[in-house]
């Protein structure tokens, strides 16, 4: 029983990484109805930017704020330059765009900062959290930051006019235009916010996985799995999905013989497929009531 509890706790700790990433995935999905395959690379690049700022002597939280602001702006610029022209193009064209962006950002990051692994600092320290060896203060801090972002997003979408306009633009673009919403800018704003959230995810994840251009490869797939499990329409679901995927992964690794570290990634992929087949809306996705 203690083994079980420990594994759940450790699962929550790794789940925080996925939850963070899933939040960014859901943000962009809400805005454009696609999964952005370059999301992880954007987050990785942002993390490098913050690392560079710290190398230049900017203190941690200063670099943090500057990076979030930079990522927000960069997200908007990427949308305006690359994806606005593709807005009416078929899905496959967009997917090709995402993959191109993925490759470009990955190579550019490698070109500027090379592919050697770098240490990345944590503002929370890495001692055991409340005396537990399974969860460190950094992981506890990361969980706190993820939940804080979730609460802020909730308030933004529920109680602000811009949040309401963004929801309207995402759910029914034509009706949104008919009440005077500039839907094109709402999409750009969605990109900006997703990039900003992604950058926070990157800065929280980097101390755990170390900083290098391919750091997000596995994390993004887990992020997708978490978002799909929780429901792509629900930020809350995405975060819960993240924790659940983390716990699930740990329990399977512990109790099912033969599943070592090597087989953990296929578990995430299998989870995506199972959820899509059994409950496509995800655990917390809103089932829309319709009456005609």
């Amino acid at each position, binding site marked *: 029983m203690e083994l079980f509890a420990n594994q759940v706790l450790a699962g929550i700790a790794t789940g925080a990484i996925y939850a963070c990433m899933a939040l960014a995935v859901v943000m962009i999905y809400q805005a454009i109805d696609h999964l952005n395959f370059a999301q992880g690379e954007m987050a990785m690049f942002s993390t490098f930017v913050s690392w560079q700022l710290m190398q230049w002597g900017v203190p941690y939280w200063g670099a943090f704020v500057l990076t979030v602001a930079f990522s927000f702006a960069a997200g908007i610029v990427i949308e305006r330059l690359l994806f606005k022209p593709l807005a009416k193009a078929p899905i496959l064209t967009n997917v090709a765009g995402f993959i191109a962006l993925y490759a470009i950002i990955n190579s550019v990051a490698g070109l500027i900062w090379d592919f050697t692994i770098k240490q990345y600092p944590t503002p929370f320290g890495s001692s055991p959290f409340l005396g537990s060896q399974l969860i460190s203060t950094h992981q506890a801090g990361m969980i706190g930051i993820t939940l804080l972002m979730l609460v802020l997003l909730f308030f933004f979408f529920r109680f602000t*006019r811009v949040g*309401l*306009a963004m*929801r*309207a633009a995402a*759910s*029914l673009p*034509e*009706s*949104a*235009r*008919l*009440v*005077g*919403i*500039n*839907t094109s800018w709402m999409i750009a704003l969605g990109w900006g916010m997703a990039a900003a959230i992604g950058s926070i995810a990157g800065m929280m994840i980097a101390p755990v996985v170390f900083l290098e251009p391919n750091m997000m490869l596995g994390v993004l797939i887990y992020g997708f799995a978490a978002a799909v499990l929780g429901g792509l329409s629900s930020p809350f679901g995405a975060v819960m999905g993240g924790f659940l995927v983390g716990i699930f992964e740990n329990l399977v690794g512990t109790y099912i013989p033969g599943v070592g570290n090597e087989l953990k990634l296929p578990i995430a992929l299998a989870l995506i497929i199972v959820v899509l087949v059994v409950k496509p809306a995800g655990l917390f996705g*809103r089932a*829309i*009531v*319709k*009456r*005609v």
Partner: protein
Amino acid sequence: MTAMLNVKDLRAYYGQVQALHGLSFSLNEGSLTTLLGANGAGKTTTLRAICNMVRSTGAIEFEGKPIGTRSTENVVRLGIAHVPQGRGTFTNMTVEENLQLGAISRSDKNAIGADIERMYEHFPVLKQRYTQQAGTLSGGEQQMLAVARALMLRPRLMLLDEPSFGLAPLIVRDLFRILGKINREEKVTILVVEQNAQLALELADQAHVIETGRIVMSGNAKDIANNEDVRKSYLGY
């Protein structure tokens, strides 16, 4: 009375197909005008062309300003509310959020709450359901909500596309009574597209008849209602 909306030689296209063939008409400020015509005559296209939701050529002027090249959202921001066919309800949001969205482009935030209360007076059923997901409302309630949402813009001109579609006759009567009241009391100019010609002609003061993308008859709603051809084609007696 001055012309509030002037449409000249409007031609609209869906891909290669031309739907409007040089349509011209004008709306007087404060009027309640109806656009009549059979299925496929171009009524909906006319409304969509005014809001630039379909490719079109020709001149459209609103209060003296050309609006043909403005984007849909910028046409709306001039004070032209459009209740589309199928109502365009944000079904996964609450009734109150739908009303908030109607006023989303307004800058006088403090007056919005009072306007929502006013809508609840016009449409009491919406007040009972204000926290409910709009998709759970009945067809008639959703149409009320669509009209209320459009009014939240405080529009100068309101375009309605077949508000009676799919509603029970009693509810249609109710809705049209409210539209007449809004036109008189709130001084909103209204252009309503209808297949229910009889009701529309009772309600309206002006009428235009469209056939295959052209206006074939215009005038006082009473005169149009008494016209022999119109009676035979659209009123059925």
